């Protein structure tokens, strides 16, 4: 009998990788104050800008996607991102909740 089937974020990452997409894994590594997604939350982004999962409940996802695409463009393998309310880009994305989060993004390599 089959186990309950749930498409997980990591399985989706593997599927993308196997269909020749470039894949970035983004994970929440630290939070301060109130933030919608707990440490360990993850999201994946591919080179087409498609994403799956969540790191902030919608507040900074667009910025994270941009950073992931930059990482690919610059041929880097990892980077830490920090989002605060006082950031210059808070007006655009920011965290409405007043929290701060640190996100670690890394490329999946063969």
């Amino acid at each position, binding site marked *: 009998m089959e186990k309950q089937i749930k498409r997980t974020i990591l399985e989706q990452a593997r599927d993308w990788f196997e269909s020749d997409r470039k894949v970035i894994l983004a994970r929440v590594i630290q939070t301060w104050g109130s933030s919608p997604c707990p440490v360990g939350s993850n999201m994946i982004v591919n080179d087409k800008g498609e994403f799956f999962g969540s790191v902030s409940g919608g507040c900074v996802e667009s910025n994270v996607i941009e950073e992931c695409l930059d990482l690919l463009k610059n041929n880097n393998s990892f980077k830490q991102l920090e989002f605060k309310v006082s950031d210059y880009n808070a007006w655009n994305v920011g965290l409405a909740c007043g929290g701060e989060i640190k996100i670690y993004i*890394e490329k999946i390599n063969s």
Partner: protein
Amino acid sequence: MKLEMLNEIIQKKSSSQNFALLTNLTNGNSEIFEFGKFLSNDFENYKKQIENYHSLKKNGVIDGTQIFIQNFTKPIEVIIVGAVHIAQYLVDLFKNLNFVITIVDPRKFFITAERFPNVKIINDWPEEIFKKLETDSNNALITLTHDPKIDDPALKHALKNKFFYIGALGSKKTHTKRCQRLKESGFTQEEIASIHGPIGIKLGGKSGPEIALSIVSQLVLESNKLLLNSKK
């Protein structure tokens, strides 16, 4: 992260193992941690702290280091006795939570793959099933048949094996009778009181999906309490 690592995590998750993913944030290296496993130089010096975070199921950057630990914990295994319509709603609600479900029912016409696609079902008496299934305090039991000859053996097994959650569907009257039977079988007042009966938190609903939601809510509440207590 290497594809190999990704595959290893997926494989370990699907076989319900307890482990952690360690990442060195300064050089990007990753490694799997399990108790008793040898770690590479990147992480070996911090083994004590890593073990500490892992046993507390704490995710985060380990104090004073640049090591990020993400724990993957074995899901709670929920055994549902009674392949009735509420069980179908339960399967739907549990889908996005960290629970693994097994449905058992000795009645063949209830427990069919058509009614329960994509979930483990066992067509047998709970008494027989529990002889083969390995269970412990990581298990939860939900009984839904309110038929003593099906529910009671499962409840007795769960009490003896210290399931962390036991809930039994049935009215107050049904539950009082159930408690009486368990008392006669030699269970203590305290043990009997640990059964959530009538099952579920009070949402005020009477429909199948609402009862299922009240059961899932109660189970989530209890499992979170468990996690909080372990962090104290």
